[in-house]
């Protein structure tokens, strides 16, 4: 029951080229070995899942022990693959993310359907070690691989009317069997204010622990907003919409008294049914104090200067 954790080993010696190799895995390999004929095959045009090449190591780090990869990939809340903690890993094994498209719409100059590769390729992938605090009072420390959301959003040239950004998860009950039961109102929706979205801590993540994003953690691309409860960090994103009005968000729709639009980690504002003062770090037995804004107050508190956080929870 009690596990002795290894310290995260840092490979500081490495030079870090700023490029992400996005490869058309099987198809290009096949094309190379079998010959040019395959290139004419329409399949060859399909993009396989993202593969992580080099990335900038530890762009943002933490002096806290990293959660074991096994724990972070086997204990997940991803209701699209079932409501049990072990369900996502079990039921997402055959989930394919090839040829992934993200539809960008709303208040911006360049709406359209973007291929995942085209969207992230221009930017170097960064490793960011963040705390993740779930609304259920448990937490992890995860080395994400991602790109600042703001950098990507700017390429779509949001207009001055873009006050919010809304995100949508894939809705496909065949590929995501958890959606066959209406536990939540599918598709899963999340949203941020434009200031939150543009904040340098907010990233779109395509991997973790130095690898491509596992299906159960939100492959191929998910949001990570480290100062908010985990459910704000929407997974398997297929839609990004700039809007003037505050967008609807799934948990707020399900229980508006319990989950607000902001959902910043806040030990002073309890969930109506349980305390948010403490949390259990995965790998530990006893609970520890929860930090305001999950410990990112210095960076983000200014975003909420004019807000009463007890009302705008």
């Amino acid at each position, binding site marked *: 029951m009690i596990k002795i954790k290894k310290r995260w080993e840092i490979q500081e010696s490495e030079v870090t080229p700023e490029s992400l190799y996005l490869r058309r895995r099987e198809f290009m390999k096949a094309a190379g070995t079998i010959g040019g004929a395959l290139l004419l095959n329409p399949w060859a045009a399909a993009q396989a899942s993202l593969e992580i090449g080099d990335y900038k190591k530890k762009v943002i780090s933490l002096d806290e022990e990293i959660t074991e990869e*096994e*724990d972070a990939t086997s*204990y997940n809340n991803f209701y699209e693959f079932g409501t049990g*903690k072990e369900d996502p890993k079990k039921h997402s094994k055959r989930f394919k993310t090839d040829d992934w498209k993200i539809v960008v719409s709303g208040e911006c100059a360049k709406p359209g359907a973007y291929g995942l590769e085209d969207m992230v390729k221009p930017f170097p992938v960064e490793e960011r070690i963040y705390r993740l605090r779930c609304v*259920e009072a448990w937490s992890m420390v995860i080395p994400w691989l991602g790109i600042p959301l703001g950098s990507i959003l700017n390429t779509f040239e949001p207009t001055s009317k873009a006050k919010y950004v809304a995100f949508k998860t894939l809705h496909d009950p065949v590929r995501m069997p958890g959606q066959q*039961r209406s536990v939540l109102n599918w598709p899963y929706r999340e949203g941020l204010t434009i200031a939150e979205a543009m904040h340098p801590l907010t990233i779109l993540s395509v991997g973790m622990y130095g690898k491509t994003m596992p299906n159960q953690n939100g492959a191929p691309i998910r949001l990570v907003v480290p100062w908010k409860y985990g459910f704000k960090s929407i997974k398997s994103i297929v839609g990004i919409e700039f809007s003037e009005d505050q967008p609807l968000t799934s948990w707020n729709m*399900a229980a508006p008294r319990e989950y607000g639009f902001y959902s910043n980690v806040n030990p002073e504002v309890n969930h109506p049914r349980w305390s948010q003062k403490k949390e259990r770090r995965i790998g530990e037995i006893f609970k520890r104090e929860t930090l305001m804004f999950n410990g990112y107050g210095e960076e983000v508190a200014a975003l909420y200067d004019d807000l009463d956080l007890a009302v705008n929870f």
Partner: protein
Amino acid sequence: MWVATALKSVYAKPVVHLLCLVPFSALLWAAFNDGLGANPVEKLTHETGDWTLRLLLITLSISPLRQWTGQAAFVRFRRILGLYTFFYGCCHFSIWFVADHSLDLAGMIEDIVERPYITLGFSALMLMLPLAITSNQAMIRRLGKKWKSLHQLVYLIISLGVLHFVWLVKADYLEPTIYAIIALILLVHRVGPMKRFSVKSFLVAR
């Protein structure tokens, strides 16, 4: 009839004891073999809570079983089952008190007062205490008729227990609903026409 023979056998009670200890042993084994997953405390809390409810439902199904089958010997196991229910309830409570509250009494009391689902769960456990204490033969004799009325508290306990579960769920009510339906059937049986139902008379009537 083999059912009657089995129920009255000297081995029947030891077997029931062993069966009741299977979940506890499985959890203990898993705890020492890294088998409880990423959040062992949560797993232990949920499992011991589930088994408290399950055993309480099994305890409550003894009377209906006796009536439906005409096998009075089922009643031999009611006390054992009730006491194991209390045992799992105590495990459930202890894990929460130790791991969630680090044995901090003030923090625990605050939680009991402020969180309705915890209030319900804790009340259910507290109500089980007098039932456990008065479960032996001497107390049954001493309390006489009062014993029966006292032990009717079990209907309140199961209701509190199920509500405790319903109230803590975030969105997926499937599991607590199953418990609630079974509890409802067992409670309705005690007031409704089902009370007089028996398999034997049902078969004879046909």
